């Protein structure tokens, strides 16, 4: 399940990577802005795509806490658990 989430998330992130950042650079510990060079506008695009792909709703705090790929997976997992409770 976690691997599936990671694969889906990687596909979403890949769309917004700058041209000089390779898809292979996306790892669990990648920092979305400082390492993958995703700008704030594309970070919002990723958040909105994540909402659609995982059928969850994210808040401002979630975005602030979503520094790395791992953070994103943790938040997705938590939100999905909350929505099925």
């Amino acid at each position, binding site marked *: 399940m976690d691997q599936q989430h990671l694969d889906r998330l990687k596909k979403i992130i890949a769309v917004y990577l700058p041209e000089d950042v390779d898809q292979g650079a996306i790892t669990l510990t990648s920092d979305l802005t400082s390492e993958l060079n995703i700008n*704030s*506008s594309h970070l*919002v695009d990723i958040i909105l795509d994540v909402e659609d792909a995982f059928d969850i709703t994210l808040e401002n705090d979630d975005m602030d806490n979503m520094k790395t790929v791992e953070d994103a997976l943790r938040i997705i997992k938590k939100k999905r658990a909350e929505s099925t409770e």
Partner: protein
Amino acid sequence: MEERACNNYSDILELLPYASPFHFVDEIESLSANSAKGSYTFPEDAFYYRGHFPGNPVTPGVILTECCAQIGLVTLGIYLIKKDHDSLGKDDFRLAFTQADIQFLSPAYPGQKVHVVSEKEYFRFHKLKAAVKMFDESGTIICKGVLSGMLKLKDEK
């Protein structure tokens, strides 16, 4: 959604962070939570006509895009922020134009008055995305497209 009637929106106009020669809003005609409408007249003696093109002045697409952004995106964004922050001042927010996808359909000439109408797609996580259209006085469409920008209070991350 509420719409403020009988108002010239001078409070919003005063908050626009632009100055001549890069100020492309004369009048805000309407503003609501979901849309903005305003007008601008391209001055006949504007600096860009000297080079675009010599002897054949026509408003550059980049200026049309900026006019669409100032009226359709920035006035709408300031209005949306001001709804929750009544004392918003000119130095209290930051903005960045992040994306434009515009089609240019007919030319705008020196001295021409245009109207810009925008419809909000979303304003979430400080990002405002809106569909915009620019018309001339006869209703002919000059350009249309989708614009996005980031707009946040200075103390927000």
